[in-house]
């Protein structure tokens, strides 16, 4: 069984596309579609790489990441953030929350795949 990726994203068609390209690359992909209980889901079954959308129902990706890093000791968990906003202040927010990689929509499949491979090998 390959390494595990947990994808937290609320857009079904993006979930399908990312799941497909990562599965084809040998990753085991699990998905979750809301921010409410995302921290519990991550804590309950720690992945090798976490992919986190920023705008999620219930709780933003920034808040989820801050909680994981600050309150649950997940300082080493590799996290890739996906966002529709690419302004420098959004990048700053993601970095302050403790992100490892940050890519903006519309991204290419290759960008996602490269980022996940890098984070998984780190």
């Amino acid at each position, binding site marked *: 069984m390959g390494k595990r990726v947990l994808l937290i994203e609320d*857009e079904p*068609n*993006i979930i399908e*596309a990312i799941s*497909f390209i990562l599965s084809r690359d040998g990753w085991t992909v699990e998905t979750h579609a809301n921010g409410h209980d995302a921290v519990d889901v991550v804590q309950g079954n720690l992945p090798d790489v976490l992919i986190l959308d920023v705008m999620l129902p219930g709780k933003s990706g920034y808040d989820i990441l801050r909680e994981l890093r600050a309150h649950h000791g997940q300082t080493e968990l590799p996290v890739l953030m996906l966002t529709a*906003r690419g302004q420098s202040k959004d990048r700053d927010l993601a970095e302050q929350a403790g992100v490892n990689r940050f890519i903006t*929509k519309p991204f*290419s499949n290759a960008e996602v795949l490269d980022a996940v491979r890098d984070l998984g090998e780190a």
Partner: protein
Amino acid sequence: MSGIRQAELARRVDISASYLNLIEHNRRRIGGKLLLDIAAILQVEPSLLTEGAEAALIATLREAASDHRDSVAELDKVDEFAGRFPGWAALLADSRRRIGSLEHAVQTLSDRMTHDPHLAASLHEMLTSVTSIRSAAAILADGGDIEPEWQDRFHRNINEDSARLADISRALVQYLDKVDDASATIGAPQDELDAFLAQKGYCFPELEDAADVNAFVRANREALSAVACNMLGMIAKRYAEDAADLPKSQLEAAVRAHGLNPWAMSQALQASPDLVLRRLAVWGEAMGLGPLGLAVCDASGTLVLRKAIVDFPFPRFGSACPLLPLFEALARPGYPVERVVSMPGQTEKPFKAFAVCRIILTDDPRMASLSQTVMLLAPLNGTAPDACQPVGVSCQICPRDGCRARREPSILGM
């Protein structure tokens, strides 16, 4: 000053009391013969009368200098500058005011782009759809072994997302061009007036019968800024003249006899075609002709009145589509233009357009004649026939590829 009443002074120098009032409050510059006449009547030195205006000018110049942190303006010589070069000083002060108002507009627009939640949400949704389409399309284009079930799924996703993208784009364009949302404007008088007219349905029964235009404008003064109120006055005057020239009862009889045929109505009523189009825009829907839109432009092609209807928006900023029959009529004054046009959308929506341009002659041989062009729009049922003319809102937001009338690229990224 010499005990003379303001009205008497105004009468003696042949100006209105209100103009004199503006001069007294430094809102109009005074000079030349008028200055000398007033000074003579008041028995004072002419320079005494210009002191107030000069003080206001000097204050504005000081503000202009303080706007620039590293200003090298000789502040100690500002009085001398204003005194020796009053024309240049006034120009500088006017430029400073203009920069202030432009900065305010830029700030408002920038604020809107950053904080408008509807705009932000729409753009986010647009990017999400584009991402999904891009991902699924790349998977299919990459080739390799993709099971038929996955292939079907990605084809379906692309189809769904492209439909969603079309909906979002259309909604976004309509939002940006919406004429009746005063909160979305930056407060330009034309926007303010458009919002007011849209709210009233472009129909003012109180102006129909021997109307008192001034009373009408006064009654609506509270709702509008001074400039928009002034513009409303011009529209109300034209409306009242139209109502007197073609009373509602006559229009109604002509509609019953001819339906939506403004040219036949014009002949039967012995009324100018532009008058018929304007009156139909006001009352046509109430008389059973369905929703009707109206656009009026002046001789420069600038839209001065826009009554938008569903699926046929007019641009709020910038220039309209040059293919509109409105501009065809503008180029052929006096000739009625009748076209079936279609607006882009999920499906092409057809509209019947009637347009005519009337020349407004002048007796002054130095002056160019003016014109006013009117276009009436009526939606047609069904999809657009092949023979109809494609038009758009404005180039920036028009998706039509290869258009011979295009002035600039579309932001929709063709």
